[in-house]
């Protein structure tokens, strides 16, 4: 399978994501330049972290209008796997591919730290190699990672089991103290209704080798690879175990 990593002006973690895919997982990947309009036949699109367009108006607000995003949106609507990490998550929300929005952290400061997230659902191509309730150690680094949505949307997210990751403490409890940014419901990552578009604030690409302090991020990458292998590119959502 082929991965595509979008490079917006101001993308910073694009080459870290490529490193994880190409050097650690030894999978083929291509860069997708924001001005291009060809997805080069990739099987999964990653929107990486960083500060696209400086994030000057709102995070992700401008990136979503770049030419490549039109194709990414089409791709997602056809069931293609799209994965937004940090700034990529913000872009997906701005583009309407994921519900809700990410606003300034509760304490208004940027935070770079190791975080613990609990895997809430495993019937998705992004998490199916994890155990339900498993706690992953993955670093976060963001100033605007506080997930918000209106009450009806939140209720729907919970009902459809679209919350994939929640901030927890090392014992797996979703406490206020374990919430680094004030996200509603300690939400760290959500999937769309079709379960093919995933956004999360933590950076799995920075947790793929032991010396990084954790390689728990690998599980998410490997889930995607296994899902693709298992299903071919045809039906992405039916692969999940337990369905």
């Amino acid at each position, binding site marked *: 399978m082929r991965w595509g990593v979008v490079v917006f002006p101001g993308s910073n973690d694009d080459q870290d994501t490529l490193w994880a895919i190409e050097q650690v997982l030894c999978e083929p990947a291509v860069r997708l330049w924001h001005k291009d309009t060809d997805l080069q036949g990739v099987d999964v699109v990653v929107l990486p972290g960083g500060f696209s367009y400086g994030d000057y*108006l*709102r995070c992700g*607000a*401008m990136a979503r*209008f770049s030419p490549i995003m039109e194709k990414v949106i089409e791709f997602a609507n056809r069931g293609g796997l799209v994965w937004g990490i940090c700034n990529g998550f913000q872009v997906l*929300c*701005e583009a309407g591919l994921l*519900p*809700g*929005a990410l*606003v*300034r*952290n*509760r*304490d*208004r400061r940027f935070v770079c730290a190791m975080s613990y997230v609990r895997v809430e659902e495993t019937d998705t191509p992004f998490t199916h190699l994890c155990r339900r309730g498993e706690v992953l150690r993955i670093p976060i680094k963001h100033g605007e990672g*506080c997930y*918000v*949505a*209106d*009450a009806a949307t939140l209720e729907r997210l919970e009902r459809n089991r679209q919350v994939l990751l929640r901030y927890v403490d090392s014992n797996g409890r979703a406490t206020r103290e374990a919430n680094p940014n*004030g996200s509603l419901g300690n939400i760290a990552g959500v999937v769309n209704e079709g379960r093919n578009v995933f956004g999360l604030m933590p950076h799995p690409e920075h947790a793929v080798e032991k010396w990084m302090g954790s390689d728990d991020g690998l599980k998410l990458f490997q889930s995607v690879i296994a899902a693709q292998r298992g299903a071919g590119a045809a039906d992405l959502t039916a692969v999940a175990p337990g369905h």
Partner: protein
Amino acid sequence: MRKFTAAFVRLPEEESVRARVFVMPKKEVLDPQGKAVARSLHALGFTEVGEVRVGKLIELELRASDRHQAAERTEAMCRKLLANGVIEDFSFEIEE
């Protein structure tokens, strides 16, 4: 929450007007900045202050044939880019 000051007056052919766009976090959305400002104001002795909310003020210059058109275009800009309807409300004024 939009507000037109659109007076339907024809401007002298493609004149430049100024728009002021106000973008505010929705009532139900957390506004950590507003809270922090309120706390700071209290600490500085401005104890008479109640709720505070912090939003964005965007001033634009734009060419338009009349005020009505300017308002229409400004509204389109707000919907498309300047405000995020999930978390923000907007309003604007076209300069008198």
